[in-house]
């Protein structure tokens, strides 16, 4: 238990009519990739938005390295070490690529090192370096997703949350995206990933949780779940 980076226990969220959560518990160990998979409206995005403080839980607890996040504002949670790439990427489209990256390092602990962090980001995302003075909104879909992830890494987060990074991208770019996720993992970044592309997500994940209409349906290592006939029938059959 002491080793858990993120510990979500018995989380209940009421959020309009769709995507509510009914007592979900899960955890992320440091240095791992954890995937949350499930159908549309299962509550995956709600879960992520609650972890990063954009939604307030009705009950339950969320702890990051032992510290409770419940009741904290999103900006406080961000400076505690969570970087969240939201669904739809949340880029500042009217601002340049460089400005977006700089804002990724807005927190006091990262800001003095912006230059160094920018160089690190350019090394990982060489395509972005060519476009630093372009407006974020003018990038292609794949580039925008790269920028969103690069921006999130600028704060050197202890936990990187990705909400549907492959949404709306071509198969080739999706491949690039997942290999990038593995590269980040190789550098020791802990990642919590929500995906509808279940096959790909389970392939890269060390551990995965399956959400079904707001509750936890299954859990296991990525490899185990891929092999699970029930998962294959319920989710992957649709995709293959």
């Amino acid at each position: 238990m002491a080793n858990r980076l993120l510990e979500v226990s018995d989380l209940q969220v009421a959020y309009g009519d769709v995507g509510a959560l009914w007592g979900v518990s899960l955890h992320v160990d440091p240095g791992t990739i954890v995937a949350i998979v499930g159908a549309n409206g299962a509550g995956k995005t709600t879960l992520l938005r609650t972890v990063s403080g954009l939604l307030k839980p009705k009950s339950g607890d969320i702890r990051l390295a032992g510290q409770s996040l419940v009741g904290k504002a999103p900006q406080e949670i961000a400076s505690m070490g969570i970087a969240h790439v939201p669904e739809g990427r949340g880029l500042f489209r009217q601002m340049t690529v460089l400005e977006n990256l700089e804002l990724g390092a807005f927190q006091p602990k990262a800001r003095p090192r912006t230059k160094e962090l920018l160089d690190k980001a350019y090394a990982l995302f060489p395509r972005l370096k060519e476009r630093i003075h372009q407006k974020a909104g003018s990038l292609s879909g794949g580039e925008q997703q790269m920028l969103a992830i690069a921006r999130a890494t600028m704060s050197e987060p202890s936990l990187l949350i990705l909400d549907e990074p492959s949404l709306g991208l071509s198969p080739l770019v999706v491949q690039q995206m997942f290999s990038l996720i593995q590269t980040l993992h190789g550098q020791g970044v802990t990642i919590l990933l929500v995906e509808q592309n279940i096959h790909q997500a389970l392939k890269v994940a060390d551990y995965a949780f399956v959400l079904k209409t707001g509750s936890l349906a299954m859990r296991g290592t990525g490899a185990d779940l891929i092999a699970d006939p029930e998962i294959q029938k319920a989710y992957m059959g649709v995709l293959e």
Partner: protein
Amino acid sequence: MFNLPPPDILLQLSLNGALGGAMYGVAAVGLSLIFGTMRLIFLAQGAMIILAAYFVRTLFYGLGIDPFLSLLIVVPVGLGVGWLMYQGLFRKAAAEEDRNVSLLIAVGLMFLVQNLMTVIWGGNTAGVVTSYTASGIELLGVRTSFTRSMGFLIALAGTGLVMLFLRKTMVGKAVRAASEDMDAATLMGISPHRVNAIAFAIGISLAGAAGVAVATTFPFNPFAGFIFSLKALVALALGGIGNVTGALAGGILLGLIEAYVQYFISGGWTNAIAYGVFLLVLMFKPEGLFTRPYKKA
């Protein structure tokens, strides 16, 4: 049908219109910032401008401080007042994200400030008359008022400084980010209250600068502010909500429209035509006249 007037009159009209419009513009820049982060139509902006004008007048007649020199006092005081105003009046409503409440607080503030001014300075029209009030200068071969030209310069300088702040400083970039997407900005660690308070501080200090310009050029009374707020809103819409340079340009354009309508049609119709243009722009070019619609990637 009307005949086209001689070019020198046309130039005079355009110059006067542009100079007067710049004041709407600087008020609109403040509205634009506050609307940007808080999505609040700050209807009390005009009342704050008039309050600043009375303050400038008091400094002049009470302490003998030159109105233009009083910029050095009014602008910093405006920053402080704006900051405190946000913390005291709007912070709670902003946290609850109920925009009706913020709008009504702004309305209440407008009532309060207007009537306080009436109680303190009386309801009559007041003005500031200095040694140079009546003097003119030659601009583009046309004679124009010195104070109006100074007002124009103040508007340009104020907008320029705001632009620099928004483009060159990290805090300014945070304000722009928050204006575009508050949720995403908070995920970067940006505090909404901080950017809101900054937007308010700058907005009110711009109201202070506009107050100097108003005090030196126009006679004013405690209730003149509301029409100023409306004009600033029109300028804001013409320039594109959330576009700072556009707001200034929108103000100048509105000044031109008013000057031309007044000359070619009649003074009684200026407001109707200004608001008519406003409605048309809102409906058919809501992103403003000076921005190209953004292509979705």
